C-alpha cells in the first residue's frame, strides 16, 4: 500500500532499499539539495505504510526527482530520476510516480506544455513503460551517455544504442501536439541541443 509523500533531505539516510540497486545513481548531496530547493514540489517518494517499522527504517519504495525548465513553447517538466526498489518493481509504482508528476505540473503554478525524459536507446523495458504512459520518442540524442573516454560525438551519423538516448515526451493538452513526432526516432541531435 503506497502513499505519496514529499521527499525530505533526511530521506537520503533511508534510501538503501532503492539506491543499492546497481543501475541507480547516487548523486552528491548537493545535487539532491539543489532539487529540493529549486523544485520542492517535484521531488517526492512512495512510502510503503505496511512495512514493519520495528524491522526496517527503509520503507521508501521509490522516488521521483523532477524539475521545470525552458521558455515559451519549450516550458516543460523534466524527469531527472524515477526509480523503484527491486522488491516493489512491476507494481506500476513508476507509473504512479510519473502520473503524479503529470498531475502536479499540468496545473498551477506550473502549467507545463510537456514532460520529457531521457532513456537509453537499448532500454527496451523502460521505453515500453513510458510508451504505455503516453510518452513517445521526440528525438535521438547521439552520445548522450558518452563517458569522458568516449569523447563528445563528432557526427550525428554514427549511432550506438548503448550510448545514445531517446528524448521521450508527453504533451499536455495546451501543447496542442507539438511534442509528438511520428518519426521521432529519425530525428537526431547533439547533447548540446537539449539545453534549455
Amino acid at each position, binding site marked *: *500500500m*503506497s*502513499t*505519496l*509523500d*514529499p521527499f*525530505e*533531505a*533526511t*530521506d*537520503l*539516510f533511508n534510501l*538503501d532499499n532503492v*539506491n*543499492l*540497486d*546497481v*543501475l541507480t545513481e*547516487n*548523486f*552528491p*548531496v*548537493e545535487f539532491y*539539495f*539543489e532539487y*529540493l*530547493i*529549486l523544485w*520542492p*514540489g517535484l521531488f*517526492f517518494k512512495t512510502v*510503503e*505504510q*505496511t*512495512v*514493519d517499522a520495528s*524491522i*526496517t*527504517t*527503509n520503507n521508501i519504495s521509490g522516488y521521483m526527482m523532477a524539475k521545470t525548465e525552458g521558455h515559451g513553447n519549450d516550458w516543460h517538466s523534466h524527469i531527472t530520476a524515477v526509480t523503484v526498489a*527491486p*522488491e*516493489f*518493481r*512491476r*507494481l*506500476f509504482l513508476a507509473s*504512479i510516480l510519473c*502520473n*503524479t508528476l503529470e*498531475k*502536479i505540473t499540468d*496545473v*498551477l*503554478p506550473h502549467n507545463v506544455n510537456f514532460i520529457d525524459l531521457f532513456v537509453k536507446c537499448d532500454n527496451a523495458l523502460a521505453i515500453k513503460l513510458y510508451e504505455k504512459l503516453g510518452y513517445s520518442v521526440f528525438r535521438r540524442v547521439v552520445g548522450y551517455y558518452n563517458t569522458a573516454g568516449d569523447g563528445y560525438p563528432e557526427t550525428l551519423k554514427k549511432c550506438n544504442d548503448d550510448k545514445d538516448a531517446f528524448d521521450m515526451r508527453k504533451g499536455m493538452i495546451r501543447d496542442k501536439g507539438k511534442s509528438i513526432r511520428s518519426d521521432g526516432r529519425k530525428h537526431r541531435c547533439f547533447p548540446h541541443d537539449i539545453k534549455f
Partner: protein
Amino acid sequence: MSDRTEKEIFELIEKSNFKQCNVKIALLRKQFPNSSYYVILELFAKFKQSPKKFNYETELNSKYGLQGKEYVNDRKALNLLHTLFIEYSKFEEALNVYEKAMFKYPSFQLAMEWFDKSISDGHYKYMAKASLQLSKYAVVGKNSTLDKRNYSIWYAISVLALFRFKRDTLTATELKLFPMLAFKNLEEIKPFHNSEEYIIYCSVCEALFIDLCNENNENNEKARLIVNEILPTLSSEVNLNLKKFIIKYCAKIEDYELLYKSSKKILESIDDYSVLKSFIKASKHIGKSNEETKKLIIDLLGPSRNARLAYLECDVTFTGKIDRDSVMFYLEKFHHKQCCVVDLNAYKEYLEVESVLNYMSELEPKNDIHDVNTLHFSNLTSNESSEKAINLYNSHKHTLNKKMKTDYSILSTSIIKLVEESLSSNGKNPSLNDVLFSLSLLENYQTKDPHNFDTKTWIIALYMHLGCVSQAYSHFADLKIKNVQSDIMHHLIYTRMSSLFPHKSHPYIQHFLTEKENLYEKSLPRLTNFIKISFEREAYSKIMGMLDFRNRLVSSSFKWLSDIEETQLARLTNNKRGTLIQKNLESWRKINMINGAFNFSDNRDWSRFGEFVKKDNLPYTFQYLKFTDMSMKVNFIKELMIYYLSLGESNSTLDNLIQETIPSDKLVLLKEHLTPIEAWSFNIFYDLYKNEGSSLNDTLEYIPSKEELSTWRLSNYYITKLATLKTLDNMQQISDKKLKESIKKQLQELRENCDDLYKSYSSEIISSSSVLSSTQKKILNSLDYKELKPELITDGILKIQKAVRDL
C-alpha cells in the same frame, strides 16, 4: 588595512611566527587607534600564541561576553570575536556579540550576517531574533531583494526549528511568546502567495499549537484554521504537503462531509493509500455503504494495487471482518508479486493463515514469488522451513539462468533463510563450520544473481566476521557505495579498521578516505550555505529537513567512528597525530554546538539483515559491528589521554569529559562497550593519565582468551595489544627501567608470535572446512553448490598477517 597585510598576518599566525605578527599588528594599532578590528586581531593573535596563558575572563569575557560592556560594530571584528568564543565552546557568547552590535548599530547587513552565523551554529533562537531584525530593516530594492513578509516566514521557520531541535533551552515565557509571535506575524501577511507559505502556516499551527496543547478547543480552533486555509487550494493545485494537512485535520475536527469531499478530490489526481483510508472512514461516517464505497474507489482509481487493497480496508471499516471476495480481488493480481506479504500482513489480525493459504493455492501462475509468499504465510518450524526453502529453491532455480542480470531473484530469500538457520545454531554461538557453510551458500548463490545486494551484504559481514577484509572489500566494491551512502554503509567494513586491517595503501582504505573526504570535508561544509539559499529561494517546506540532515551528518556516529579510527591508525603507524587530534576536538565542539550535548546521530543502516540483526543485541557473527556511542566516546578519551600524556600535561576539557563519561566503577562500562583487549588498553592509559601509572605493573600482563585467537578477534587482539605496547614503549613518562624492559620484552614476544598466531587460525579454518556436518554437505549437494575453498579464507588471513607483521 590592505587585504595583503591581513593575509600576511594570518599566515604568520598559521606558521606560529608571532614575533613578526605582533610587530605588524602593533604598527597597525598605532596607525588606526580607533579600529576595533585591530584590537580583536591583537587578542586573537595573543590567544593563538598561547591559549593556555590567555586569560579568557579578563581579556575576552568581561569585555565582550554576555555581561561585557564593549560594543563592536566592525564585521571582521565580529567574525573574529565569534571565532574566539567558539574556541572556548562559548556558543551563546559567540552570537551574542552580534545581538549587542545590532542593538547599538542596527543595520540590515548586520542582521543578515547574524542570521547566517546563527544557521551555521545551529542556534535557532538567534536565527529567530535576527529574522525579526531583518524584517525591521529590510527595504526592497535598496538593501534586500526580499520583502518584509519573507522575513516573517523566516522567523516562523526559526521558531519551528527551535521547538523541534532545542526546545529544552527555552524559558516558560519564551515557550509561550515565540509561537504567538510566529502565528501573529503569519496572520498579518495573509493572503499567502504560494504553497510553500501555506505549508509554513500549517506547520506553525500544528507544531507550535496543536501538538503542544492539551486543550481540545484550542486544538480544534487551529485545526479548523488549517482546513479553511488549504481548502481553496485543492481545486487549483496538487501539492503533496497540503494533501497531508487537509486529510489529517478534516479528520481531527470530525468534519466527515468535508473529509469525504477533500479525499475524493485528491484521489481524482493521485493514487494514495493514506488518502484512500481517510476516504473510506469518511464514507462510512456520512452513511455510504461498503459496496457503494468500493465502487467509488474503482471509479476513481481503477483496479490498482491500492484500490484492491482498499477493499480489505473497506471490509474492516464497515463490517469488522474481511470477505473472501475482497482478499481474492487483491490476490488475483498480487499473489505472485513481492508486495503481497507486506500488504496482507497489515491486515493479519483479520485474516486466517489457513484461509489465505487456501486462496493462494487456487491461483496461477505459481511462480517463484508465489511460492515464496506462500512460505512466508506458513507458520513453519525451523526444520520444516529449511526443507521448504531448499525445495522452493530447487523448484525454481532454472529461473536464475533466464532472468536479466540486473534483475534480483526472490530465491535469495531461501538462501538467506538457510544462512540464518545455520548461524542461529540452536541458540549457541555458531562455529567456524557454520560460518564457512553459510559463506558457501551465499558465494554460490551470488554467482547466479550477481547484483543481489541482500546476499552481497551478508557475504561482506561474514567475511568481516572471519577477519578477511580484502575478501569483504572485493564484494563491497561492487556496491559502488558513494556520497551519503558512505555514512550509512561503510560501517560494514570500516568499524574497528585500525585494529582489523591497518593497511594504509590497500585499495579499500584509499577508496574509503576519498569518499570520506568527499562527504564530510567537501559536501558537509556546503550544506549550511544551501540552507541559507533555501530561505532566499523560498523553499520553505524543505528547510526543517535540511537542518535535520545537516545536524545528523555533523553528529554522525560513523563520521566520528571513522575520525577516531584514522587517529588510531596514525598512532599505530607512527604518523603525526596532532592535526588529527585537533580535528577530533573540533568535531567534538561542533557536535556540542549543534546538539547542545555530546550526542551522536546513528545513521548507519541496521536494517540490511532484517530481523536477524538488532542493533542493540547483535548476534555473534555481527559482533565486530558492536561499536556503540559509548565505545566511540571511550576511544576518543583514550586518544586524548595518550595525546596529553605525550605532551606531558593534563587538560581540563579532557578531565571534564572523563568525569562526564567514565563512572567510578568503569569495569562494567568497559566490558559492555569494548572487547576485552580494548578495555585492557583503555585501563592502561587511564591509569597512566589519572594515577601516573601506579597500577601499570599489574595491568600490563594480558593473556588472551581462546575466543580472541580466531575470527576478527585475533587481529583486534593482536593489533590493539601491539599498538598499546608500542605507544607505551615510546612514552617518556615511563621512567622505571624494569617496567620499560618488561614493555620491550612483551612487544618483542608479541611480534615473534605474530606468524604463529595467524598460522594457527588458518589451520583452524582448514580443519573446520574439512569437517562440514553431513547435514551441511547434504544441503550443499541438494542445491548443487560447491563447498567454499578454505584457501579463499586463508589467503585473506595471510594478507593481514603480512600487513601487521612489520608494524
